[in-house]
């Protein structure tokens, strides 16, 4: 690890002010940043430890819920209202990492965790995300974990996290402070960027801007499912994952919010899927059509082509499960 200065800010405003220079990074749980600092993928000169700021509580937000940026993944998944009303969120968190890591991982750090592309984490390899202009080792390389939707000729990495997939399905909002426009709110669905020509700009955070909380909308009565397909049954990142919030009324689908992990540089949400599903009677033909639509622009490079049929089957299995036992 390269040497750095370690400072503890007094409050969120102080933190944002201190982070406003190049080479200064926030650290919360540290489980992603320190991992990357040991590999010298990240080489900050100053670490601003936001870990003790007053952003570690969960509170009612109207009929919804406000989860502070420093609430640990464990405390979110354990929260009585999350278990009762936002089961899909608890499920995504519990499907990620391990108890030790979830005890440390925070809401803000989890949203900002970086890709698990092995060319990104190996400083001997070319990587446009780590070193702009150096090329992309994964394109034409070993790319099993890589994107099949929304990738670019610069970067085919995926966003690896689980929690944000539920937040995208729930249409949660990220609250930010410290940027040029002061406080602002961004839907989780718009928080992460596609790689385009600037794969190093992974999300909409400006320099100095920090996440203060995520708010969940009022709960809906619906079937909530998270299906994560991975190479071992625990302690592995998703190859493909589906978060689904689905309600039926009088035999027809009344609500269908879907989001996907492992497919793209961001939690993937395609508004066309709800349009196809809502108002329809569930059937295998309908689900096939939804899968066709999700994957109509799918493009796999080499090793990740298996994800196309895997995403199709996982989506259809989840839609079937979510609709078969509801009236």
């Amino acid at each position: 690890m390269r040497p750095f200065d370690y400072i503890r800010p007094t409050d969120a405003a102080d933190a944002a002010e201190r982070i406003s220079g190049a080479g200064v990074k926030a650290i919360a749980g540290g489980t992603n940043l320190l991992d990357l600092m040991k590999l010298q993928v990240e080489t900050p000169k100053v670490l601003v430890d936001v870990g003790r700021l007053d952003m570690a509580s969960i509170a009612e937000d109207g009929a919804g819920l406000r989860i502070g940026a420093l609430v640990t993944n464990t405390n979110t998944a354990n929260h009585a209202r999350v278990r009762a009303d936002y089961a899909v969120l608890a499920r995504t968190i519990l499907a990620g990492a391990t108890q030790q890591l979830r005890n440390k991982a925070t809401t803000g750090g989890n949203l900002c965790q970086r890709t698990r592309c092995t060319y990104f984490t190996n400083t001997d390899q070319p990587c446009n995300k780590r070193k702009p202009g150096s090329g992309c080792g994964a394109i034409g390389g070993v790319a099993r974990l890589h994107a099949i939707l929304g990738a670019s000729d610069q970067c085919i990495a995926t966003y690896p996290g689980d929690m944000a997939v539920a937040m995208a399905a729930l249409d949660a909002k990220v609250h930010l402070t410290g940027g040029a426009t002061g406080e602002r709110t961004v839907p989780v669905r718009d928080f992460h960027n596609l790689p385009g020509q600037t794969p190093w700009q992974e999300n909409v955070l400006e320099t100095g801007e920090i996440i203060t909380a995520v708010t969940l909308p009022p709960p809906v009565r619906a079937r909530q499912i998270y299906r994560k397909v991975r190479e071992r049954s625990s302690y592995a990142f998703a190859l493909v994952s589906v978060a689904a919030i689905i309600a039926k009324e009088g035999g027809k689908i009344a609500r269908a919010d879907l989001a996907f992990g492992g497919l793209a540089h961001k939690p993937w949400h395609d508004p066309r899927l709800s349009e196809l599903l809502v108002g329809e009677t569930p059937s295998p033909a309908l689900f096939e059509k939804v899968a066709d639509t999700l994957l109509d622009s799918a493009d796999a490079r080499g090793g990740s082509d298996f994800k196309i049929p895997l995403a199709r089957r996982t989506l259809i299995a989840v839609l079937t499960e979510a609709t078969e036992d509801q009236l």
Partner: protein
Amino acid sequence: MSETIKVNGSDHLMPADARVSLLDFLRHYVGLTGTKKGCDHGQCGACTVLVDGVRINSCLTLAAMHGQQEVTTIEGLGTPDAPSDLQKAFLEHDGFQCGYCTPGQICSATALLDEIRAEWPSDASDDLNAPSLSDEEIRERMSGNLCRCGAYANILAAIRQVAETGA
């Protein structure tokens, strides 16, 4: 003014170099070598300790982040003369071969028993509000502790015994 970290009940001065991980602090500054370094990247669990009673990977955190907090390591759970229930159960059930992963396994399992008592759910819980003590649950909750020797069956038996009988 220098900060301190409490380790197994006694205070230790924070290292001057901010780069020191909690794991290296415990092993090289405090001299407690029970806590092991397997991967140094959060992937194996050999470095598991309890901080304010909560299990974490000590390799992926800085000592500097834990000023005024209380760390419990394997040495703090029991001694050869007065082992904890889990330490005894690991001996009885042969819950190890080389022993390298064992301190992490026992710290993890110690926290696991508290977590089950507090009804924390896991990925293996069918009902998020009523986790059970099935083998599947224990395995999932211990999935952050790898054992290269493959002593898993005996580790499971040791944890199950303490969970069920309290000793």
